[in-house]
């Protein structure tokens, strides 16, 4: 049989942007994975951080968990609306997601970090606090990045949109936003419920 051109693989069917986001998230998982693994190992070496961890504001942490989970839901609803080409709803859900993200950061910064520093707990206050500020800080930077991305999409919906473009970008931003949410789901019990 003379060899002929064969059909190329099905990976052709995944849109470029989606593939890129997944690879990006894979590397991000390794970053947070590295931090979380280091934290867990340190935790075992330091007797569970029980003493130092007592002072985290777990109720606010739980509230923030709720905030982020809700924002993931509104992000999904934004995508669903974009798929139905409902501009009003898409804009609304994107806006709520942005607001919820900002709520998360406000609670974190103004009701946790600043009071904690006031109470004398800084990153230099011991291994637990180093990890607490380091991990939630890095997470917060990622939340901020997501807020910016979602806000840009929100602005885009103020005018006429190219639906296929909007749909794709809401999906990609959504993937990133869900990832940020999942990282928090790991951080919350590790830091707040020890």
């Amino acid at each position, binding site marked *: *049989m*003379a*060899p*002929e*051109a*064969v*059909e*190329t*693989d099905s*990976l*052709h069917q*995944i849109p*470029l942007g989606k*593939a*890129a986001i997944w*690879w*990006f998230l*894979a*590397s*991000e*998982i*390794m*970053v*947070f*994975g*590295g*931090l979380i*693994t*280091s934290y867990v*190992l*340190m935790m075992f*070496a*330091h007797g569970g951080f029980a003493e130092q961890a007592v002072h985290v504001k777990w109720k606010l942490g739980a509230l923030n968990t709720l905030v982020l989970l809700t924002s993931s839901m509104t992000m999904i609803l934004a995508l669903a609306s974009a798929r139905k080409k409902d501009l009003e709803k898409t804009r609304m859900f994107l806006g709520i997601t942005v607001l919820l993200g900002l709520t998360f950061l406000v609670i974190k910064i103004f009701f946790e970090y600043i009071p904690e520093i006031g109470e004398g707990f*800084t*990153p*230099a206050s*011991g*291994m637990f606090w*180093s*990890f607490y*500020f*380091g991990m939630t800080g*890095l997470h917060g930077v990622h939340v901020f990045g997501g807020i910016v991305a979602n806000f840009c999409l929100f602005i885009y919906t103020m005018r006429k949109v190219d639906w296929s473009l909007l749909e794709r970008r809401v999906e990609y931003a959504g993937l990133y936003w869900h990832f940020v949410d999942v990282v928090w789901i790991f951080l919350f019990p590790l830091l707040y419920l020890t």
Partner: protein
Amino acid sequence: MSTAVAAGAHAHEHHELGFIRRYIFSTDHKVIAKQYMTASALMAILGGLAAYLIRWQLAWPETDVPGWGPFGPENYNAYITMHGTIMIFFVAMPFLLGAFGNFLIPLMVGADDMAFPRLNALSFWTLTVASTILIISMLLPEGPAAAGWTGYAPLSANPLYTGVHWGQNLWILAIAAEFGSFLMGGINFLVTTLNMRAPGMSLMRMPLVVWTEVTASVLFLLSVGPLIAGAIMLFLDRTMGTGFFLPDKGGDPLLWEHLFWFFGHPEVYVVALPGFGIMLEILSVFSRKPIFGYKMIVYSTITTGILSFVVWAHHMFVSGIDPRLATPFSITTILISVPFAILVFCMTATLYGASIRFTAAMLFALGGLITFILGGVTGIFLGSASSDIYMHGTYFVVSHFHYVLFPTVFFGGFGGLYFWYPKMFGRMMNETLGKIHFWGTFIFFNCTFIPLFFAGLGGTPRRLYEFSNYEMLAHLQPLQVMATWSLIGLLIVQFPFLFNFLYSMFRGKVAEKNPWHANSLEWTLDSPPPHPNFPTPPRVYHDPYEYSVPGMSEDWLPQDQPMPVGAATAAGE
């Protein structure tokens, strides 16, 4: 040249692209590749200068270095750090991945450009920012980072231990930026290769250099995360009073070592694999033979990648880890030599029954294979925990890793340059100068590092400013002198190459499309290829290694031409 026949306005726009858009902020992968090449060349000069200073000091301690001046212990630690950091992060990766990966991947898979051309440009400019930060750190009065390219804590975590404050901080930032640059580049390579191949270009029909570039990208993508985490922690230790790696604050220096080497080991394959890929391409073309064992090589490449994640503690046998861990890591380390053995044997088998043309490119590919093997076998001494007790931290290690890195990066890289120069620049390089460059590099490289194996066996520790404190090392000094003379020769013999490279760009013989009669898709295009790459989209019929197919009058068959019926039957396909 872009087909001006296209829609008038569009073509007009292309011609309007000013110098800045075409050459400085270009999104064309071929231009970006050349930008990476230029960047790596400039940084290689810095890295080579560092090597010269270090080696002069080691051969003739306490003398002024010609062309530089006094070189004291306060500079030495900084320069060994800069040499390692620059060579790995700012020369090897930009050269093998940034330059060759960018240039070759779209052309070889039949795509018009990378999946994300603007991201590609951003990745290059991020690297430029990273390099600038590193260079600034070298100009600070206190000097740049001085804790080794491995940056072990607590030496690197508390400025008091080295006396270097912002030099070390900027080092962390420069490397972090470099990581960002290659993460962006890696995503581009992966998505382009997996999603933008031309019709008929199945994964098992891709040139092997694409396989190696892609595997390297995946390795980097998945291994760098923990070190980014570590770098953040190190930066916090240095600036915010945390103590992740400082025992006084409850931290653990070994945590840094684990995070570093979890990345560090896959990283050496990130550098080595593309170099091998380049050598494989050259070997096939100038042997006029298919690569022996294409599938074996693909599976070996992937296996090497996977195994590279579970060997890291062989850098840490005597570091204070639980000694029981030495056994599993010795086993995984021994296992990883298997895919590399397959690779080397397949390359050797490719030469069997060949019809070899000794062009400069082929000399470098062969020379690279020959020198790499010494690096590979000396690794066995280090991968076995008991013998590593003696060898660790000595010049034996230094020679080993130069013998695995230099052949892949420089022999592979130079080979690639001589091979693809016609395609990149539309001209031929001078073959005679190329041969002089090869023999000089080959001889001087070996004469530099073979003495250092013996220095290590004799008990010479690495990273020492000088050896006069150790009586037991006095008789080994001639080895250090020999190594330095050879290094100077090695540096000097690069000048004919530089001259050849630059001169040929303007005065070299104009190159045809396919001066080497090679099969992969880039050779079907003009030299240099137009923008966009493929005026007509290619269709691929077979792998790129159909050389000397029985029954054919020509000894080569481009990928975009189907196998002639008679030849196909004769080959038994």
